[in-house]
């Protein structure tokens, strides 16, 4: 249905969606500040919110950039690869039978356990973190894409059979569009997981990055700076999630059920 002024209308609908959580966040920060004031907590345990701006290190941009690169590269490589493998899986039962158990084994192995090996193999630079981020982002996309490519209802497949559609036509016109919401669900999950992978990679061995900053701050009891690094890592994940959500809104207009 079209109203007279669609832009105003949509603003009226989306404004509460943004304002409500923002107000709650502000309320939380206020309570945090009040608690620190009242309880007189020392700064090295819990700094007050207004202590944080002072604690932002001058080279924060470099740290953010290093981690952002790791996250983004790992995220992109893993998802592209997982998507392609899922497409292969759906075509061939043999490949699926062979690789699926390995993928599950990979998923159940904690990334923290693998990270030291990655640093040993790929060094303390960019590559080991990209691989860590990729490893942890890989599985959601693999599983979701397989599920999505198989999610078309039997009746829809029957329609394509009745219309004598080729395999390619069936894939492009039925299975792919059906899988798209699943793909985006996976992208949203791995948007936050990729940050975990990169940070864990940095914990094991790094010369820069938010994970490196977190460890450094922790060793030196620079708790305010530690908070800054944590918030920075969270923001990275949120930003990536937001970008994925926007892309989803643009590409999956029919699917409004998904979160």
């Amino acid at each position, binding site marked *: 249905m079209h109203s007279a002024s669609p832009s105003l209308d949509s603003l009226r609908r989306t404004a509460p969606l943004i304002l409500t959580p923002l107000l709650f966040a502000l309320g939380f920060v206020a309570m945090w500040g009040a608690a620190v004031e009242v309880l007189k907590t020392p700064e090295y345990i819990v700094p007050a919110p207004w202590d944080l701006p002072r604690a932002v290190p001058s080279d924060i941009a470099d740290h953010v950039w290093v981690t952002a690169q790791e996250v983004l590269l790992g995220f992109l490589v893993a998802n592209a690869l997982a998507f392609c493998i899922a497409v292969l899986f759906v075509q061939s039962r043999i490949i699926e039978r062979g690789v699926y158990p390995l993928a599950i084994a990979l998923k159940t192995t904690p990334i923290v356990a693998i990270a030291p090996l990655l640093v040993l193999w790929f060094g303390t630079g960019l590559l080991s973190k990209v691989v860590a981020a990729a490893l942890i982002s890989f599985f959601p996309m693999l599983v979701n894409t397989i599920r999505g490519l198989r999610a078309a209802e039997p009746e*829809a497949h029957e329609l*394509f059979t009745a219309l004598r559609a080729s395999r390619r036509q069936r894939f492009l016109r039925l299975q792919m569009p059906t899988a798209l919401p699943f793909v985006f669900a996976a992208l949203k999950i791995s948007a936050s997981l990729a940050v975990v992978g990169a940070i864990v990679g940095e914990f094991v061995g790094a010369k820069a990055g938010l994970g490196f900053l977190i460890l450094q701050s922790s060793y030196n009891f620079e708790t305010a700076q530690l908070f800054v690094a944590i918030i920075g890592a969270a923001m990275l994940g949120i930003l990536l999630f937001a970008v994925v959500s926007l892309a989803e809104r643009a590409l999956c207009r*029919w699917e409004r059920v998904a979160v």
Partner: protein
Amino acid sequence: MSALTQARPCQSDQVVGQPDEVLVAARAVGHRFEGADEEILRAVDVDVRRGEVVALLGPSGCGKTTLLRLLAGLLESTDGEVHRAPAASPAGFMFQRSVLLPWRSAMANVMLPRELHRTAGPEAERRARELFEILGLAGAEQRRTHELSGGMQQRVALARALIEQPRLLYLDEPFSALDEITREELNLELLRVLRTTDLQGVVIVTHSLEEAAFLADRVLVMRGSPGEVVDEVEVELPQPRTLEIKETKEFTSCTVHLRRSIRFGAQPR
């Protein structure tokens, strides 16, 4: 399978057959699904003749949908033979659910068969717009399908079934998910479409006595497991049919006959 079944769509009017010409013939057709012992259908004979609406009527699980699929060639029978005359193609299909692709507009859904067969073009679009007009869908061309009511969705599905100017229409309980009133509307719509297009025949699966009597020229009553055709009823109601027909004695006696056939097998005329 004979060469008949492999025939490609025939677009012209070159096949001017006799009025009694058989478009699809099933002989002693039986079916069991792969790996299952259970017989779904046994020794069924069906003729679909030119200009006819044939209803397959029966309770759930009597194999009527399987029979429809065998007639349409969506399924290969495990016993017996099905012959399809060249004049029986192209065929259109409609299922119980509309099976519209939600990422496409109503128009794009209707154009899907043309797109798959690479026959989309200005002519196809003109045809599609015509169908939107005929089926009361004008104005809904660019609507997303989930914005449409159930009845409208089935109309879009019907338009999609008609976009390739089929000779034969196979309908598998197409209106059973709709409310009674919408269903009656669509039944009328279907009869109107039948008169105004070059459709040569319709095979419709239904479990509604009324729908069978109202739409069909001939009703094949099915029951049992494995399913068999237990009765064949010619519906001698005047054409074109209107909803008022449902209030006549003839209509009632027809549905009474059908009900008894379903329950007790073939009934004397």
